[in-house]
Protein backbone atom coordinates (compact mmCIF):
# COMPACT_ATOMS: atom_id res chain seq x y z
CA UNK A 1 0.00 0.00 0.00
CA UNK A 2 2.65 2.44 1.02
CA UNK A 3 4.67 0.79 -1.69
CA UNK A 4 2.52 2.52 -4.25
CA UNK A 5 3.74 5.74 -2.74
CA UNK A 6 4.90 8.21 -5.30
CA UNK A 7 4.65 5.74 -8.12
CA UNK A 8 6.53 6.49 -11.29
CA UNK A 9 4.76 9.10 -13.38
CA UNK A 10 2.88 7.45 -16.19
CA UNK A 11 0.58 9.83 -17.93
CA UNK A 12 2.37 13.11 -17.58
CA UNK A 13 3.63 15.18 -20.40
CA UNK A 14 6.96 15.71 -18.74
CA UNK A 15 8.48 14.31 -15.62
CA UNK A 16 11.05 16.99 -15.05
CA UNK A 17 11.50 17.79 -11.39
CA UNK A 18 10.56 21.42 -11.98
CA UNK A 19 7.20 20.54 -13.43
CA UNK A 20 4.98 21.72 -10.59
CA UNK A 21 1.90 20.35 -12.24
CA UNK A 22 2.68 17.24 -10.29
CA UNK A 23 4.66 17.60 -7.10
CA UNK A 24 5.49 13.90 -7.14
CA UNK A 25 7.96 14.78 -9.89
CA UNK A 26 9.89 16.80 -7.35
CA UNK A 27 9.79 14.18 -4.63
CA UNK A 28 10.58 11.48 -7.20
CA UNK A 29 13.66 13.45 -8.25
CA UNK A 30 14.81 13.69 -4.65
CA UNK A 31 14.34 9.96 -4.18
CA UNK A 32 16.23 9.24 -7.40
CA UNK A 33 19.03 11.41 -6.12
CA UNK A 34 19.24 9.35 -2.94
CA UNK A 35 19.24 6.11 -4.88
CA UNK A 36 21.91 7.36 -7.27
CA UNK A 37 24.07 8.32 -4.32
CA UNK A 38 23.92 4.73 -3.16
CA UNK A 39 21.46 5.23 -0.32
CA UNK A 40 19.94 2.04 1.07
CA UNK A 41 16.41 1.02 0.13
CA UNK A 42 14.91 1.79 3.49
CA UNK A 43 16.25 5.34 3.36
CA UNK A 44 14.38 6.01 0.12
CA UNK A 45 11.34 4.54 1.73
CA UNK A 46 11.55 6.67 4.86
CA UNK A 47 12.42 9.84 2.95
CA UNK A 48 9.55 9.26 0.55
CA UNK A 49 7.08 8.85 3.39
CA UNK A 50 8.50 11.85 5.21
CA UNK A 51 8.28 14.04 2.11
CA UNK A 52 4.64 13.17 1.59
CA UNK A 53 3.82 13.66 5.24
CA UNK A 54 5.67 16.95 5.23
CA UNK A 55 3.62 18.09 2.29
CA UNK A 56 0.34 17.21 3.97
CA UNK A 57 1.27 18.59 7.37
CA UNK A 58 2.50 21.84 5.91
CA UNK A 59 -0.65 22.10 3.84
CA UNK A 60 -2.80 21.52 6.89
CA UNK A 61 -0.78 23.96 8.95
CA UNK A 62 -1.20 26.66 6.36
CA UNK A 63 -4.85 25.84 5.99
CA UNK A 64 -5.51 26.00 9.71
CA UNK A 65 -3.97 29.45 9.80
CA UNK A 66 -5.53 30.87 6.67
CA UNK A 67 -8.96 29.34 7.23
CA UNK A 68 -9.46 31.16 10.49
CA UNK A 69 -9.01 34.36 8.58
CA UNK A 70 -11.20 33.24 5.66
CA UNK A 71 -13.98 32.06 7.89
CA UNK A 72 -14.01 35.20 9.96
CA UNK A 73 -13.84 37.50 6.96
CA UNK A 74 -16.53 35.68 5.01
CA UNK A 75 -18.87 35.42 7.96
CA UNK A 76 -18.10 39.04 8.71
CA UNK A 77 -19.29 39.96 5.24
CA UNK A 78 -22.48 37.97 5.74
CA UNK A 79 -23.08 39.69 9.05
CA UNK A 80 -22.48 43.15 7.61
CA UNK A 81 -19.30 43.79 9.52
CA UNK A 82 -15.69 43.81 8.52
CA UNK A 83 -14.09 40.94 10.31
CA UNK A 84 -10.45 41.04 11.39
CA UNK A 85 -8.70 43.86 9.55
CA UNK A 86 -6.09 45.32 11.89
CA UNK A 87 -3.19 42.90 12.17
CA UNK A 88 -1.18 42.84 8.98
CA UNK A 89 -2.55 43.54 5.50
CA UNK A 90 -6.32 42.89 5.47
CA UNK A 91 -5.95 41.37 8.91
CA UNK A 92 -4.12 38.42 7.46
CA UNK A 93 -1.90 38.06 10.49
CA UNK A 94 -4.85 37.85 12.85
CA UNK A 95 -4.65 34.03 13.15
CA UNK A 96 -0.99 34.33 14.03
CA UNK A 97 -1.82 36.84 16.71
CA UNK A 98 -4.55 34.54 17.98
CA UNK A 99 -2.16 31.63 18.11
CA UNK A 100 0.41 33.67 20.03
CA UNK A 101 -2.25 34.73 22.47
CA UNK A 102 -3.43 31.15 22.96
CA UNK A 103 0.13 29.95 23.55
CA UNK A 104 0.72 32.60 26.17
CA UNK A 105 -2.40 31.71 28.08
CA UNK A 106 -2.18 29.44 31.04
CA UNK A 107 -3.47 25.96 30.37
CA UNK A 108 -5.94 25.45 33.15
CA UNK A 109 -6.95 22.01 34.20
CA UNK A 110 -9.75 21.37 36.65
CA UNK A 111 -8.58 19.67 39.82
CA UNK A 112 -11.17 16.92 39.42
CA UNK A 113 -10.39 16.35 35.75
CA UNK A 114 -8.89 13.11 34.56
CA UNK A 115 -5.43 14.40 33.74
CA UNK A 116 -4.35 11.83 31.17
CA UNK A 117 -7.64 11.86 29.28
CA UNK A 118 -7.86 15.61 29.48
CA UNK A 119 -4.44 15.97 27.86
CA UNK A 120 -4.72 13.26 25.25
CA UNK A 121 -8.15 14.22 23.92
CA UNK A 122 -7.26 17.37 21.94
CA UNK A 123 -4.31 15.60 20.34
CA UNK A 124 -6.39 12.57 19.50
CA UNK A 125 -8.99 14.89 18.00
CA UNK A 126 -6.44 16.51 15.69
CA UNK A 127 -4.74 13.42 14.32
CA UNK A 128 -7.58 11.72 12.37
CA UNK A 129 -8.34 14.86 10.38
CA UNK A 130 -4.75 15.03 9.21
CA UNK A 131 -4.44 11.29 8.63
CA UNK A 132 -7.49 11.46 6.46
CA UNK A 133 -5.73 13.65 3.94
CA UNK A 134 -3.12 10.95 3.28
CA UNK A 135 -5.43 9.00 1.00
CA UNK A 136 -6.64 12.00 -0.98
CA UNK A 137 -5.31 12.18 -4.54
CA UNK A 138 -3.86 15.64 -5.11
CA UNK A 139 -2.98 15.01 -8.73
CA UNK A 140 -2.89 12.21 -11.24
CA UNK A 141 0.05 10.61 -9.44
CA UNK A 142 0.12 12.68 -6.31
CA UNK A 143 -1.23 10.49 -3.58
CA UNK A 144 0.68 9.71 -0.43
CA UNK A 145 -1.05 6.42 0.35
CA UNK A 146 -2.88 5.02 -2.63
CA UNK A 147 -5.12 3.03 -0.35
CA UNK A 148 -7.30 0.47 -2.02
CA UNK A 149 -10.00 0.95 0.61
CA UNK A 150 -9.72 4.72 0.78
CA UNK A 151 -13.39 5.35 1.46
CA UNK A 152 -13.53 2.94 4.39
CA UNK A 153 -10.41 4.62 5.72
CA UNK A 154 -12.29 7.91 5.72
CA UNK A 155 -15.10 6.38 7.79
CA UNK A 156 -12.62 4.86 10.21
CA UNK A 157 -10.89 8.18 10.77
CA UNK A 158 -14.09 10.10 11.32
CA UNK A 159 -15.21 7.59 13.91
CA UNK A 160 -11.90 8.00 15.73
CA UNK A 161 -12.43 11.74 16.00
CA UNK A 162 -15.72 11.15 17.77
CA UNK A 163 -14.02 8.99 20.37
CA UNK A 164 -11.56 11.81 21.00
CA UNK A 165 -14.32 14.35 21.49
CA UNK A 166 -16.11 11.96 23.76
CA UNK A 167 -13.20 11.32 26.08
CA UNK A 168 -12.35 15.02 26.09
CA UNK A 169 -15.80 15.81 27.42
CA UNK A 170 -15.62 12.95 29.85
CA UNK A 171 -12.17 13.84 31.11
CA UNK A 172 -13.15 17.43 31.85
CA UNK A 173 -15.46 16.20 34.58
CA UNK A 174 -17.93 18.94 33.84
CA UNK A 175 -21.66 18.53 33.38
CA UNK A 176 -21.82 20.69 30.30
CA UNK A 177 -18.86 18.85 28.78
CA UNK A 178 -20.58 15.57 29.50
CA UNK A 179 -23.69 16.78 27.70
CA UNK A 180 -21.53 17.62 24.73
CA UNK A 181 -19.91 14.20 24.83
CA UNK A 182 -23.19 12.37 25.05
CA UNK A 183 -24.52 14.35 22.13
CA UNK A 184 -21.40 13.57 20.12
CA UNK A 185 -21.88 9.86 20.65
CA UNK A 186 -25.55 9.97 19.79
CA UNK A 187 -24.76 11.93 16.65
CA UNK A 188 -21.87 9.65 15.72
CA UNK A 189 -23.98 6.52 15.99
CA UNK A 190 -26.74 8.14 14.00
CA UNK A 191 -24.83 9.92 11.30
CA UNK A 192 -22.28 7.25 10.53
CA UNK A 193 -25.05 5.32 8.81
CA UNK A 194 -26.22 7.91 6.25
CA UNK A 195 -22.60 8.85 5.57
CA UNK A 196 -21.63 5.27 4.77
CA UNK A 197 -24.77 4.62 2.80
CA UNK A 198 -24.49 7.80 0.76
CA UNK A 199 -20.88 7.15 -0.23
CA UNK A 200 -21.81 3.56 -1.04
CA UNK A 201 -23.77 4.77 -4.05
CA UNK A 202 -20.70 6.60 -5.29
CA UNK A 203 -18.55 3.53 -4.78
CA UNK A 204 -21.02 1.41 -6.73
CA UNK A 205 -20.86 3.75 -9.69
CA UNK A 206 -17.09 4.08 -9.63
CA UNK A 207 -16.59 0.39 -9.00
CA UNK A 208 -13.79 1.06 -6.55
CA UNK A 209 -13.18 2.29 -3.05
CA UNK A 210 -9.90 3.81 -4.13
CA UNK A 211 -10.28 7.56 -4.19
CA UNK A 212 -8.02 7.98 -7.19
CA UNK A 213 -10.12 5.45 -9.09
CA UNK A 214 -13.21 7.45 -8.19
CA UNK A 215 -11.61 10.57 -9.60
CA UNK A 216 -10.55 8.68 -12.70
CA UNK A 217 -14.11 7.43 -13.15
CA UNK A 218 -15.28 11.03 -13.21
CA UNK A 219 -12.50 12.01 -15.59
CA UNK A 220 -13.24 9.11 -17.92
CA UNK A 221 -16.94 9.78 -18.05
CA UNK A 222 -16.58 13.51 -18.29
CA UNK A 223 -18.86 14.35 -15.39
CA UNK A 224 -18.86 15.10 -11.68
CA UNK A 225 -20.38 12.47 -9.47
CA UNK A 226 -22.51 15.16 -7.85
CA UNK A 227 -24.55 15.13 -11.07
CA UNK A 228 -25.04 11.38 -10.90
CA UNK A 229 -25.58 11.34 -7.16
CA UNK A 230 -27.21 14.60 -6.07
CA UNK A 231 -29.12 12.90 -3.27
CA UNK A 232 -26.00 11.21 -1.95
CA UNK A 233 -24.24 14.55 -2.05
CA UNK A 234 -26.99 16.25 -0.06
CA UNK A 235 -27.06 13.46 2.49
CA UNK A 236 -23.31 13.43 2.81
CA UNK A 237 -23.12 17.18 3.13
CA UNK A 238 -25.75 17.36 5.87
CA UNK A 239 -24.40 14.35 7.73
CA UNK A 240 -20.87 15.58 7.63
CA UNK A 241 -21.87 18.97 8.94
CA UNK A 242 -23.35 17.03 11.85
CA UNK A 243 -20.09 15.15 12.26
CA UNK A 244 -18.13 18.37 12.04
CA UNK A 245 -20.11 20.12 14.74
CA UNK A 246 -21.00 22.98 12.49
CA UNK A 247 -24.33 24.77 12.48
CA UNK A 248 -27.07 23.68 11.92
CA UNK A 249 -25.78 20.70 13.85
CA UNK A 250 -23.21 22.09 16.25
CA UNK A 251 -24.98 20.45 19.14
CA UNK A 252 -21.86 19.10 20.75
CA UNK A 253 -20.59 22.54 21.54
CA UNK A 254 -23.86 24.47 21.28
CA UNK A 255 -22.58 27.62 22.81
CA UNK A 256 -25.96 29.07 23.63
CA UNK A 257 -27.15 25.89 25.33
CA UNK A 258 -24.31 24.05 26.93
CA UNK A 259 -21.73 26.81 26.83
CA UNK A 260 -19.18 25.18 24.58
CA UNK A 261 -19.90 21.54 25.34
CA UNK A 262 -16.97 19.21 25.29
CA UNK A 263 -14.31 21.92 25.27
CA UNK A 264 -15.83 24.09 27.97
CA UNK A 265 -12.97 23.37 30.38
CA UNK A 266 -10.16 23.76 27.90
CA UNK A 267 -7.99 26.83 27.70
CA UNK A 268 -4.73 27.95 26.19
CA UNK A 269 -3.15 25.85 23.50
CA UNK A 270 -5.24 22.80 24.34
CA UNK A 271 -8.27 24.78 23.33
CA UNK A 272 -6.28 26.07 20.38
CA UNK A 273 -5.74 22.49 19.32
CA UNK A 274 -9.46 21.82 19.46
CA UNK A 275 -10.08 24.95 17.48
CA UNK A 276 -7.49 24.03 14.86
CA UNK A 277 -8.74 20.46 14.72
CA UNK A 278 -12.22 21.69 14.02
CA UNK A 279 -10.95 23.68 11.07
CA UNK A 280 -8.80 20.77 9.91
CA UNK A 281 -11.76 18.43 10.04
CA UNK A 282 -13.84 20.90 8.10
CA UNK A 283 -11.13 21.07 5.46
CA UNK A 284 -10.86 17.30 5.47
CA UNK A 285 -14.55 16.88 4.80
CA UNK A 286 -14.42 19.59 2.14
CA UNK A 287 -11.57 17.65 0.59
CA UNK A 288 -13.58 14.44 0.58
CA UNK A 289 -16.51 16.18 -1.04
CA UNK A 290 -14.23 17.86 -3.57
CA UNK A 291 -12.63 14.53 -4.41
CA UNK A 292 -15.60 12.22 -4.39
CA UNK A 293 -18.36 14.45 -5.71
CA UNK A 294 -16.56 17.22 -7.56
CA UNK A 295 -13.92 15.34 -9.47
CA UNK A 296 -10.84 16.01 -7.37
CA UNK A 297 -7.92 17.10 -9.49
CA UNK A 298 -9.85 16.66 -12.73
CA UNK A 299 -11.64 19.59 -14.32
CA UNK A 300 -12.58 19.27 -18.00
CA UNK A 301 -9.16 19.49 -19.67
CA UNK A 302 -8.20 22.41 -17.46
CA UNK A 303 -6.21 19.97 -15.36
CA UNK A 304 -3.80 19.59 -18.24
CA UNK A 305 -2.73 23.20 -17.86
CA UNK A 306 -3.37 24.01 -14.23
CA UNK A 307 -1.67 21.77 -11.64
CA UNK A 308 -4.07 19.21 -10.24
CA UNK A 309 -3.36 20.09 -6.65
CA UNK A 310 -4.37 23.68 -7.33
CA UNK A 311 -7.66 22.48 -8.75
CA UNK A 312 -8.23 20.34 -5.67
CA UNK A 313 -7.51 23.25 -3.37
CA UNK A 314 -9.83 25.46 -5.39
CA UNK A 315 -12.60 22.92 -5.08
CA UNK A 316 -11.91 22.46 -1.39
CA UNK A 317 -12.44 26.14 -0.83
CA UNK A 318 -15.58 26.17 -2.94
CA UNK A 319 -17.04 23.50 -0.67
CA UNK A 320 -15.67 25.16 2.41
CA UNK A 321 -17.42 28.36 1.43
CA UNK A 322 -20.73 26.51 1.42
CA UNK A 323 -19.95 25.23 4.90
CA UNK A 324 -19.26 28.78 6.07
CA UNK A 325 -22.41 29.93 4.35
CA UNK A 326 -24.66 27.44 6.10
CA UNK A 327 -22.93 28.23 9.34
CA UNK A 328 -23.56 31.91 8.90
CA UNK A 329 -27.20 31.43 8.02
CA UNK A 330 -28.90 28.65 9.88
CA UNK A 331 -29.93 28.18 13.49
CA UNK A 332 -29.34 24.94 15.30
CA UNK A 333 -31.50 21.84 15.49
CA UNK A 334 -32.46 20.29 18.76
CA UNK A 335 -30.76 16.99 19.43
CA UNK A 336 -33.87 14.84 19.11
CA UNK A 337 -34.84 16.61 15.91
CA UNK A 338 -31.40 16.08 14.46
CA UNK A 339 -31.41 12.38 15.30
CA UNK A 340 -34.95 11.96 14.02
CA UNK A 341 -33.93 13.70 10.82
CA UNK A 342 -31.15 11.18 10.31
CA UNK A 343 -33.15 8.09 11.16
CA UNK A 344 -36.45 9.00 9.62
CA UNK A 345 -35.32 10.81 6.54
CA UNK A 346 -31.70 10.53 5.58
CA UNK A 347 -31.21 6.81 6.20
CA UNK A 348 -34.29 5.71 4.24
CA UNK A 349 -33.41 8.15 1.46
CA UNK A 350 -29.88 6.79 1.31
CA UNK A 351 -31.21 3.24 1.07
CA UNK A 352 -33.57 4.23 -1.72
CA UNK A 353 -30.63 5.86 -3.42
CA UNK A 354 -28.54 2.71 -3.13
CA UNK A 355 -31.32 0.56 -4.58
CA UNK A 356 -31.64 2.95 -7.47
CA UNK A 357 -27.92 2.99 -8.10
CA UNK A 358 -27.74 -0.79 -7.90
CA UNK A 359 -30.40 -1.07 -10.56
CA UNK A 360 -28.65 1.44 -12.75
CA UNK A 361 -25.25 -0.19 -12.42
CA UNK A 362 -26.68 -3.62 -13.17
CA UNK A 363 -28.44 -2.24 -16.22
CA UNK A 364 -25.20 -0.65 -17.35
CA UNK A 365 -23.13 -3.77 -16.90
CA UNK A 366 -25.65 -6.26 -18.23
CA UNK A 367 -26.75 -4.42 -21.34
CA UNK A 368 -23.36 -2.98 -22.16
CA UNK A 369 -24.94 0.17 -23.48
CA UNK A 370 -22.60 3.05 -23.88
CA UNK A 371 -21.92 5.42 -21.05
CA UNK A 372 -22.73 8.32 -23.33
CA UNK A 373 -26.30 7.07 -23.57
CA UNK A 374 -26.84 5.83 -20.05
CA UNK A 375 -25.13 8.45 -17.90
CA UNK A 376 -27.26 11.41 -19.08
CA UNK A 377 -30.29 9.24 -18.53
CA UNK A 378 -29.10 8.40 -15.02
CA UNK A 379 -28.40 12.04 -14.31
CA UNK A 380 -31.98 12.87 -15.26
CA UNK A 381 -33.44 9.96 -13.28
CA UNK A 382 -31.43 10.62 -10.15
CA UNK A 383 -32.05 14.34 -10.29
CA UNK A 384 -35.77 13.80 -10.65
CA UNK A 385 -35.68 11.27 -7.84
CA UNK A 386 -33.92 13.74 -5.57
CA UNK A 387 -36.42 16.45 -6.35
CA UNK A 388 -39.35 14.11 -5.75
CA UNK A 389 -37.98 12.89 -2.43
CA UNK A 390 -37.26 16.39 -1.19
CA UNK A 391 -40.70 17.62 -2.20
CA UNK A 392 -42.27 14.59 -0.56
CA UNK A 393 -40.39 15.27 2.61
CA UNK A 394 -41.45 18.89 2.64
CA UNK A 395 -45.04 17.80 2.11
CA UNK A 396 -44.82 15.39 4.99
CA UNK A 397 -43.27 17.93 7.29
CA UNK A 398 -45.36 20.92 6.25
CA UNK A 399 -48.61 20.18 8.13
CA UNK A 400 -46.76 20.31 11.41
CA UNK A 401 -45.49 23.77 10.59
CA UNK A 402 -48.64 25.04 8.95
CA UNK A 403 -50.90 24.30 11.90
CA UNK A 404 -50.68 27.99 12.63
CA UNK A 405 -49.85 30.78 10.20
CA UNK A 406 -46.35 32.17 10.14
CA UNK A 407 -47.48 35.65 11.02
CA UNK A 408 -49.57 36.93 13.91
CA UNK A 409 -53.19 38.09 13.78
CA UNK A 410 -53.81 41.80 13.95
CA UNK A 411 -56.32 43.25 16.40
CA UNK A 412 -57.52 46.81 16.24
CA UNK A 413 -58.41 47.06 19.90
CA UNK A 414 -57.96 45.14 23.09
CA UNK A 415 -59.78 41.85 23.38
CA UNK A 416 -59.46 39.92 26.58
CA UNK A 417 -61.55 36.76 26.77
CA UNK A 418 -63.10 36.08 30.11
CA UNK A 419 -61.70 32.88 31.43
CA UNK A 420 -62.69 30.77 34.39
CA UNK A 421 -59.97 31.23 36.95
CA UNK A 422 -58.32 27.95 37.87
CA UNK A 423 -57.84 27.12 41.51
CA UNK A 424 -54.10 27.44 41.32
CA UNK A 425 -51.47 28.26 38.79
CA UNK A 426 -49.66 25.14 37.86
CA UNK A 427 -48.14 23.40 34.87
CA UNK A 428 -50.80 23.16 32.23
CA UNK A 429 -51.02 20.74 29.40
CA UNK A 430 -49.22 22.21 26.39
CA UNK A 431 -51.28 22.89 23.34
CA UNK A 432 -54.54 22.82 25.23
CA UNK A 433 -55.57 26.32 24.28
CA UNK A 434 -59.34 26.76 24.58
CA UNK A 435 -61.51 28.00 21.79
CA UNK A 436 -61.55 31.74 21.51
CA UNK A 437 -63.53 34.31 19.71
CA UNK A 438 -62.02 34.79 16.29
CA UNK A 439 -61.96 38.52 15.77
CA UNK A 440 -59.36 39.01 13.15
Amino acid at each position, binding site marked *: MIGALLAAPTALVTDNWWDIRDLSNLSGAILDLIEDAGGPGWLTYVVGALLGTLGIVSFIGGVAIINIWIERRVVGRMQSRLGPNRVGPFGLLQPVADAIKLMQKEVLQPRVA*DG*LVFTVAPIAFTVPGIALLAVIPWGRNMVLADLD*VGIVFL*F*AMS*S*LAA*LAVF*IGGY*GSNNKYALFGSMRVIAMLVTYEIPIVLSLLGVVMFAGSMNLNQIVLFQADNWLFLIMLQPLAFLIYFLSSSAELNRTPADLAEAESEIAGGYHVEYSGMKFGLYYAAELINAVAVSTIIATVFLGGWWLYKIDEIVPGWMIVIGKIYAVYFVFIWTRGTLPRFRIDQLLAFAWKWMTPMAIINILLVAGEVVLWEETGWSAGLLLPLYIAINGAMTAVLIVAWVRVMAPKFQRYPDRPRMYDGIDVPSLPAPASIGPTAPGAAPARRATV
Partner: protein
Amino acid sequence: MIDDAGIVVAFWILSATTVICALMVAAARNLIHAVLFLALTFVGVAGIYIVLSADFVAVVQVLIYAGAVGVLMTFAIMLTPGADRLNSSTVFQAPALVLSALVLAVIVFVALDTEWAISDRQAFSATARSLGEAFLKPYIVPFEVASVLLAAAMIGAIVLSREEPEDERAA
Protein backbone atom coordinates in the same frame (compact mmCIF):
# COMPACT_ATOMS: atom_id res chain seq x y z
CA MET B 1 9.12 -14.00 4.78
CA ILE B 2 9.08 -10.25 4.40
CA ASP B 3 12.46 -8.66 3.89
CA ASP B 4 11.42 -5.12 3.08
CA ALA B 5 13.35 -3.21 5.72
CA GLY B 6 10.77 -0.48 6.16
CA ILE B 7 7.97 -2.94 6.77
CA VAL B 8 10.01 -4.97 9.23
CA VAL B 9 10.95 -1.90 11.23
CA ALA B 10 7.32 -0.77 11.15
CA PHE B 11 6.25 -4.18 12.39
CA TRP B 12 8.54 -4.10 15.39
CA ILE B 13 7.58 -0.57 16.33
CA LEU B 14 3.90 -1.43 16.01
CA SER B 15 4.30 -4.66 17.93
CA ALA B 16 6.12 -2.95 20.78
CA THR B 17 3.44 -0.23 20.95
CA THR B 18 0.64 -2.73 20.82
CA VAL B 19 2.06 -4.99 23.50
CA ILE B 20 2.85 -2.08 25.79
CA CYS B 21 -0.65 -0.70 25.35
CA ALA B 22 -2.11 -4.14 25.99
CA LEU B 23 -0.07 -4.39 29.17
CA MET B 24 -1.39 -1.00 30.18
CA VAL B 25 -4.92 -2.30 29.73
CA ALA B 26 -4.07 -4.84 32.38
CA ALA B 27 -2.17 -2.40 34.56
CA ALA B 28 -4.19 0.82 34.30
CA ARG B 29 -5.97 1.63 37.52
CA ASN B 30 -8.80 3.59 36.02
CA LEU B 31 -11.24 1.75 33.84
CA ILE B 32 -11.56 4.67 31.41
CA HIS B 33 -7.80 4.72 30.96
CA ALA B 34 -7.91 1.01 30.30
CA VAL B 35 -10.44 1.59 27.54
CA LEU B 36 -8.25 4.27 26.01
CA PHE B 37 -5.24 1.98 26.02
CA LEU B 38 -7.42 -0.70 24.53
CA ALA B 39 -8.34 1.67 21.69
CA LEU B 40 -4.64 2.34 21.14
CA THR B 41 -4.03 -1.39 21.10
CA PHE B 42 -6.69 -1.77 18.46
CA VAL B 43 -5.04 0.89 16.34
CA GLY B 44 -1.66 -0.78 16.78
CA VAL B 45 -3.12 -4.14 15.78
CA ALA B 46 -4.56 -2.44 12.72
CA GLY B 47 -1.03 -1.32 11.91
CA ILE B 48 0.16 -4.92 12.18
CA TYR B 49 -2.61 -5.91 9.78
CA ILE B 50 -1.32 -3.36 7.29
CA VAL B 51 2.16 -4.82 7.65
CA LEU B 52 0.60 -8.18 6.82
CA SER B 53 -0.89 -6.46 3.75
CA ALA B 54 -4.45 -6.81 4.95
CA ASP B 55 -5.51 -3.24 4.38
CA PHE B 56 -9.25 -3.82 4.27
CA VAL B 57 -9.27 -5.72 7.53
CA ALA B 58 -7.03 -3.06 9.06
CA VAL B 59 -9.36 -0.25 8.15
CA VAL B 60 -12.36 -2.22 9.31
CA GLN B 61 -10.51 -2.91 12.54
CA VAL B 62 -10.07 0.82 13.16
CA LEU B 63 -13.65 1.54 12.16
CA ILE B 64 -15.27 -1.14 14.27
CA TYR B 65 -12.91 -1.73 17.16
CA ALA B 66 -11.35 1.63 17.85
CA GLY B 67 -14.37 3.60 16.68
CA ALA B 68 -17.38 1.58 17.70
CA VAL B 69 -16.35 -0.90 20.38
CA GLY B 70 -14.19 1.63 22.19
CA VAL B 71 -17.01 4.15 22.24
CA LEU B 72 -19.45 1.46 23.29
CA MET B 73 -17.26 0.49 26.23
CA THR B 74 -16.78 4.07 27.36
CA PHE B 75 -20.50 4.51 27.06
CA ALA B 76 -21.19 1.41 29.12
CA ILE B 77 -18.81 2.62 31.81
CA MET B 78 -20.62 5.93 31.96
CA LEU B 79 -24.01 4.27 32.07
CA THR B 80 -22.97 2.44 35.20
CA PRO B 81 -22.10 5.48 37.27
CA GLY B 82 -22.46 3.91 40.69
CA ALA B 83 -20.21 0.99 39.86
CA ASP B 84 -16.57 0.69 40.76
CA ARG B 85 -14.44 2.68 38.33
CA LEU B 86 -11.27 0.93 39.42
CA ASN B 87 -9.78 -1.62 37.09
CA SER B 88 -9.03 -3.86 40.03
CA SER B 89 -8.26 -7.56 40.03
CA THR B 90 -9.96 -10.47 41.70
CA VAL B 91 -8.28 -12.96 43.97
CA PHE B 92 -7.52 -15.05 40.91
CA GLN B 93 -4.75 -12.75 39.84
CA ALA B 94 -1.88 -15.17 40.45
CA PRO B 95 -3.56 -18.24 38.90
CA ALA B 96 -4.57 -16.12 35.91
CA LEU B 97 -1.01 -14.98 35.53
CA VAL B 98 0.30 -18.53 35.66
CA LEU B 99 -2.29 -19.74 33.21
CA SER B 100 -1.58 -16.93 30.76
CA ALA B 101 2.13 -17.62 31.00
CA LEU B 102 1.47 -21.29 30.28
CA VAL B 103 -0.69 -20.46 27.28
CA LEU B 104 1.99 -18.12 26.00
CA ALA B 105 4.62 -20.80 26.43
CA VAL B 106 2.52 -23.29 24.50
CA ILE B 107 1.89 -20.80 21.70
CA VAL B 108 5.58 -19.94 21.45
CA PHE B 109 6.51 -23.61 21.47
CA VAL B 110 4.00 -24.46 18.77
CA ALA B 111 4.99 -21.47 16.69
CA LEU B 112 8.65 -22.33 16.78
CA ASP B 113 8.39 -26.08 16.64
CA THR B 114 5.98 -26.49 13.74
CA GLU B 115 7.23 -26.87 10.19
CA TRP B 116 5.11 -24.21 8.51
CA ALA B 117 4.47 -24.54 4.81
CA ILE B 118 5.79 -21.10 4.01
CA SER B 119 4.94 -19.75 0.60
CA ASP B 120 6.96 -17.12 -1.21
CA ARG B 121 3.86 -15.08 -1.93
CA GLN B 122 4.23 -11.36 -2.45
CA ALA B 123 2.01 -8.89 -0.64
CA PHE B 124 -1.63 -8.85 -1.62
CA SER B 125 -2.21 -6.11 -4.12
CA ALA B 126 -5.89 -5.40 -3.62
CA THR B 127 -7.72 -7.28 -0.94
CA ALA B 128 -11.06 -5.52 -1.04
CA ARG B 129 -12.17 -6.91 -4.38
CA SER B 130 -11.07 -10.50 -3.75
CA LEU B 131 -12.51 -10.31 -0.25
CA GLY B 132 -15.82 -9.21 -1.66
CA GLU B 133 -15.78 -12.03 -4.16
CA ALA B 134 -14.96 -14.50 -1.40
CA PHE B 135 -17.87 -13.22 0.66
CA LEU B 136 -20.36 -13.41 -2.12
CA LYS B 137 -19.26 -16.70 -3.70
CA PRO B 138 -17.86 -19.41 -1.40
CA TYR B 139 -18.81 -17.77 1.89
CA ILE B 140 -22.25 -16.50 1.01
CA VAL B 141 -24.01 -18.60 3.66
CA PRO B 142 -21.80 -17.52 6.58
CA PHE B 143 -22.04 -13.98 5.30
CA GLU B 144 -25.83 -14.04 5.46
CA VAL B 145 -25.76 -15.80 8.80
CA ALA B 146 -23.47 -13.09 10.11
CA SER B 147 -25.90 -10.42 9.04
CA VAL B 148 -28.73 -12.28 10.74
CA LEU B 149 -26.56 -12.55 13.81
CA LEU B 150 -25.89 -8.81 13.75
CA ALA B 151 -29.60 -8.10 13.53
CA ALA B 152 -30.24 -10.52 16.38
CA ALA B 153 -27.53 -8.90 18.47
CA MET B 154 -28.96 -5.48 17.78
CA ILE B 155 -32.44 -6.53 18.86
CA GLY B 156 -31.00 -8.35 21.84
CA ALA B 157 -29.03 -5.33 22.95
CA ILE B 158 -32.10 -3.13 22.64
CA VAL B 159 -34.22 -5.56 24.62
CA LEU B 160 -31.60 -5.95 27.31
CA SER B 161 -30.90 -2.31 27.85
CA ARG B 162 -34.48 -1.15 27.52
CA GLU B 163 -36.10 0.15 30.64
CA GLU B 164 -38.98 -2.13 31.58
CA PRO B 165 -42.28 -0.32 31.76
CA GLU B 166 -43.47 0.06 35.32
CA ASP B 167 -46.58 -2.11 34.89
CA GLU B 168 -44.56 -4.99 33.45
CA ARG B 169 -42.15 -4.90 36.31
CA ALA B 170 -44.96 -5.01 38.82
CA ALA B 171 -46.50 -8.07 37.19
